[in-house]
């Protein structure tokens, strides 16, 4: 008891204490408020915008959140004692301006300052996503972000199968599937969402059964429909990412134009026999202005020259590679991680086992995303290549 109080007195001479109003003002000026309380305390409410790093992992994780050692930190606990110990440890770690919130969260709340009840992972989620939580680039905040994300899958076939499986496994909270087709036995050579028993069932229903068997907690929304210029706005509104796994140019151009219009990231994958293409068409990407699909291919080929119409067949594993790469890009977009395929086209040749990266430049004269582009009007390319590539 006496030792504890003596130590706290010492700490008060080493760490500047601030009251809640001052802490809020510092936070507004760019200081980072660090809530070091335990998860069950944080679950009941925490200051808005606070970084939440449990005391036990503070020194190990703080640099991931605050790399700048000269940043002003305000450490906070429930009553203002634990935060003094924590603040001193952060000083010893090398942070040059560390304060402690006097009175802790009680004082913050008492002064009527903004509080949020953060989404926290429950025990089942902690167990299921444990390997994500160990990855610093994902962590609890990233996992929560995935759980709150919404992805629209265009096509529940060759590309959509691996993409949807991995996104469901990763805990993307809402997956919507658009596909008007039914499962055919010839699909099963590559469309691993479906099963022999479900031949004849709508693909979206079959897909939902598989995805829920893998991860019952996510929401799977099904649309047994073909995308058209009439329904696309309603279907894609509110989604964070659209994964294009379609099999025809009419849908691909529609998806592209609608994604540009709505500012949604369009994860593109296409396959032919043993070769695939992957890119991310997302002119609204903040870090660099990227191209859209029409910047690369302004118009679809006429049916007689569309190789996908005239010739059929695909190595069954190829959509596994390409669809999985689409899932990788999707998760990166959702978490804001790494360098996305914006402005880059990845071409994969399975026979030569070779990836080639090509630059895709934005076309300033693009009819959809170019400087002079007028309001986007959808084009229905109709029957063009609607027989599909049989990919």
């Amino acid at each position, binding site marked *: 008891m006496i030792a504890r109080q003596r130590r706290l007195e010492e700490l008060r001479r080493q760490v500047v204490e601030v009251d809640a109003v001052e802490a809020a003002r510092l936070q507004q000026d760019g200081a980072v408020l660090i809530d070091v309380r335990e998860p069950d305390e944080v679950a009941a409410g925490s200051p808005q915008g606070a970084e939440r790093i449990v005391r036990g992992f503070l020194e190990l994780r703080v640099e991931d959140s605050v790399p700048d050692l000269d940043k002003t930190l305000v450490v906070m606990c429930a009553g203002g004692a634990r935060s003094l110990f924590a603040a001193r440890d952060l000083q010893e770690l090398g942070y040059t301006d560390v304060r402690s919130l006097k009175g802790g969260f009680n004082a913050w709340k008492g002064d009527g300052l903004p509080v949020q009840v953060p989404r926290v992972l429950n025990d089942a989620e902690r167990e299921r996503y444990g390997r994500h939580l160990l990855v610093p680039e994902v962590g609890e905040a990233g996992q929560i972000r995935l759980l709150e994300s919404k992805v629209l899958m265009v096509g529940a076939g*060759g*590309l959509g199968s691996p993409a949807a499986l991995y996104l469901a496994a990763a805990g993307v909270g809402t997956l919507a599937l658009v596909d008007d087709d039914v499962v055919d036995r010839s699909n099963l050579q590559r469309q691993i969402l479906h099963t022999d028993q479900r031949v004849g069932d709508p693909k979206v229903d079959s897909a939902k059964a598989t995805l829920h068997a893998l991860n019952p907690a996510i929401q799977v929304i099904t649309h047994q429909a073909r995308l058209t210029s009439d329904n696309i706005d309603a279907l894609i509104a509110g989604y964070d990412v659209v994964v294009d796994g379609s*099999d025809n140019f009419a849908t691909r151009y529609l998806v592209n134009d609608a994604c540009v219009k709505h500012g949604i990231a369009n994860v593109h994958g296409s396959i032919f*026999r043993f070769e695939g293409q992957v890119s991310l068409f997302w002119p609204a990407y903040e870090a660099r202005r990227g191209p859209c699909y029409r910047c690369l291919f302004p118009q679809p080929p006429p049916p007689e020259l*569309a190789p996908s119409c005239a010739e059929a067949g695909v190595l069954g594993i190829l959509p596994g590679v390409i669809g999985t790469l689409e899932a990788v890009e999707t998760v990166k977009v959702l978490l804001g991680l790494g360098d996305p395929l914006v402005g880059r086209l990845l071409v994969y040749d399975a026979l030569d086992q070779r990836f080639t990266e090509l*630059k895709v*430049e934005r076309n300033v004269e693009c009819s959809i995303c170019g400087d002079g582009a007028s309001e986007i009007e959808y084009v229905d390319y109709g029957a063009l290549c609607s027989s599909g*590539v049989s*990919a």
Partner: protein
Amino acid sequence: MSHATVRIPAPLRPLVGGVSEITAPGETVEDVLVRLGADHAGFLERVLGPGGELRAFVNIYIDDRNVRSIDGLRSKVSDGDTIHIVPAVAGGRR
């Protein structure tokens, strides 16, 4: 005379005997393509339109740069360059 290696995309491989790349001589991209077309019937019209222009649904790259951003079909080829032919491909769902 420069020689470039042309990577043949999967949809066009049946027209060139199934190989994934061919080395051909030429000073420009057009020279190289025309040379391939002379050796392989049916190849050139998949890449170039009736007026000899590059088709809108095909892109040609010299290494990682689209020739549309260089000098189009007249883009110069240097010895050892790799030319990639990248056609629009629809497939994925079915």
